[in-house]
């Protein structure tokens, strides 16, 4: 582990923590603009600041699990952002977890957020937990299949090796990666509670998933949950960029490459955010029992991508 490696690791985590609310604000800003509304782009920061200052009110019968869950979820998401090679390839933490462990990390956070929602024993909490686990159960295999396609191309499940391999190929369109890319977009919409699967801007009991999970939280606990949710969106965007558009990630062991990688990442994320907002604006929320079809399609596309790789590209 070199000094620069440790520095880039630290920089990556700090950048993720600092920029994640900005990405969420940017997406919401564009959604508002596309609907002819106006919205302050820095709203997530203000919300976090306000929530941290407020008292935390929790239910009388809430257990310690309920209070610990926001910290665990935030910890999982921070580690996830540290593993994904978004700025540099030389990451000391990347030895802790490969692509499969990354999926496990997201699953760990999901299980804790669902258990915390069931902890108080309200009808909405269990409803949210049930739906979240349902969506997670369907999305997780599809995400694994997408990562497997990339892993088979680079003959490694280590994320840094995957990015290194894909960035160093000749510029050619891989049909398997195209299928995997479509599947990945569908999975990340579902996992991040975005529009076709869940509407982040509603508290309507028939439709909400993510909001039902964090309904009982307030004050600093809610702030941590919101921050973790924006980190999750950030992490998923960075996985997408790392798998499908890995150009611009610092490979050389020099500080200047690292500093150049940051603006490139921000430009890529900005473009991705606009596309996400556009996608959300043109699609409508679907019924909860249509979600299995949606995610089943994503799973099938990912499996087809992997089979195409095995048939045509080996």
């Amino acid at each position, binding site marked *: 582990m070199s000094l620069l490696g440790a520095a880039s690791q630290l920089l990556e985590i700090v950048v993720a923590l600092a920029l994640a609310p900005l990405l969420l604000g940017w997406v919401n800003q564009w959604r508002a603009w596309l609907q002819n509304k106006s919205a302050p782009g820095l709203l997530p920061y203000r919300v976090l600041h306000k929530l941290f*200052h407020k008292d935390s009110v929790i*239910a009388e019968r809430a257990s310690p*699990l309920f209070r610990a869950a926001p910290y665990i979820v935030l910890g999982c998401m921070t580690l996830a952002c540290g593993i994904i090679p978004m700025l540099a390839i030389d990451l000391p933490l990347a030895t*802790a977890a490969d692509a499969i462990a990354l999926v496990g990390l997201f699953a760990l956070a999901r299980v804790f957020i*669902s*258990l915390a929602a069931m902890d108080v024993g309200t009808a909405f909490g269990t409803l949210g937990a049930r739906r979240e686990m349902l969506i997670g159960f369907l999305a997780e295999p599809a995400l694994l299949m997408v990562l497997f396609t990339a892993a088979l191309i680079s003959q490694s499940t280590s994320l840094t090796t995957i990015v290194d391999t894909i960035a160093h190929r000749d510029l050619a369109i891989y049909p398997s990666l195209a299928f995997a890319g479509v599947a990945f977009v569908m999975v990340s919409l579902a996992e991040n509670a975005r529009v076709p699967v869940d509407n982040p801007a509603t508290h309507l009991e028939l439709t909400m998933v993510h909001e039902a999970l964090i309904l009982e939280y307030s004050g600093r606990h809610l702030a941590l949950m919101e921050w973790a949710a924006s980190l999750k969106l950030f992490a998923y965007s960075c996985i997408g960029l790392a798998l499908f558009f890995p150009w611009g990630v610092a490979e050389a062991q020099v500080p200047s490459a690292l500093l150049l990688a940051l603006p490139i990442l921000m430009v890529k994320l900005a473009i991705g955010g606009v596309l996400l907002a556009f996608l959300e604006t043109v699609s409508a929320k679907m019924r909860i029992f249509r979600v299995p079809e949606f995610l089943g399609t994503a799973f099938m596309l990912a499996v087809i991508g992997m089979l195409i790789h095995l048939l045509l590209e080996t």
Partner: protein
Amino acid sequence: MPWVGWAVLIGVLASAGLPPLGGFVSEWLLLQSFLFTPGLPNSFLNMLIPVVAALIALIAALAGYTMVKFFGVIFLGQPREEKLSQAHDAGAWERAGMIWLVGGCVLLGLLPVQFILMIDPVTRLLVGAGLGETVAASGWLLAPVSMERANYGPVIFLAGVAASFGLAFLLVRRLYHGRLRRAAPWDCGYPWQTSRMQDTAEGFGQPIRQIFEPFFRSERHLPSPFDATPRYQVTVGDHFWHWLYLPVAAAIERAAKLIGLLQQGRISVYLVYSFVTLIAVLVWVTR
């Protein structure tokens, strides 16, 4: 029941295959072996292997759902039955019985290399090859083939989550405050919440059954909204039972009935059978 609750929580996380506990290591190794199986002779079989990996991923995700259902319905929320409110925590010996199991889950998860080295002689004896040498070379990290191929460091993993947990906790306390107030649950402003309004195991698993309805023979009787004494009844059967086992059972029963015609229960009939058999054998021998 704090002791039982926390011990079961760790067990639940391990059986759901979540890092950094025991179940995840085996899931990880299984998926790795499916991904990088060195070329089988038949290309069709080669293609089939990732599809099986997909199935395993599906099963692992379903395990998470099941375990959340198990823990959430039993340990979280309010007791739905009267006698459950008098549940008490485990005694000293009962705790000891759970703690060594919890220790197993945690140690298997955190020290996979050491455990693989321990069982290495057995795999060598059975299949003639083992992971021992390659695994031992990488020390604390689990890297079954090489560091470039795949690696997983459960200790670093746990340290990473724990460090960000602790840092977040300290920073929130230091920069803001730790004020906490207890109040009635919010639940979208509905104050007459009773324990009957939360999910049962039946309710929590209902979406899965609805999605996979074609795979089951389920019959549901739903009460109407105006029912004064609503009753809900569901019977879930297995297609295989009706398509395979019941026809086979019916065929055997029919055959048994035919054979049953022979059994008249009278000594004279059985003497006739013996006599006929004797004649037949004699005819066959003398021919």
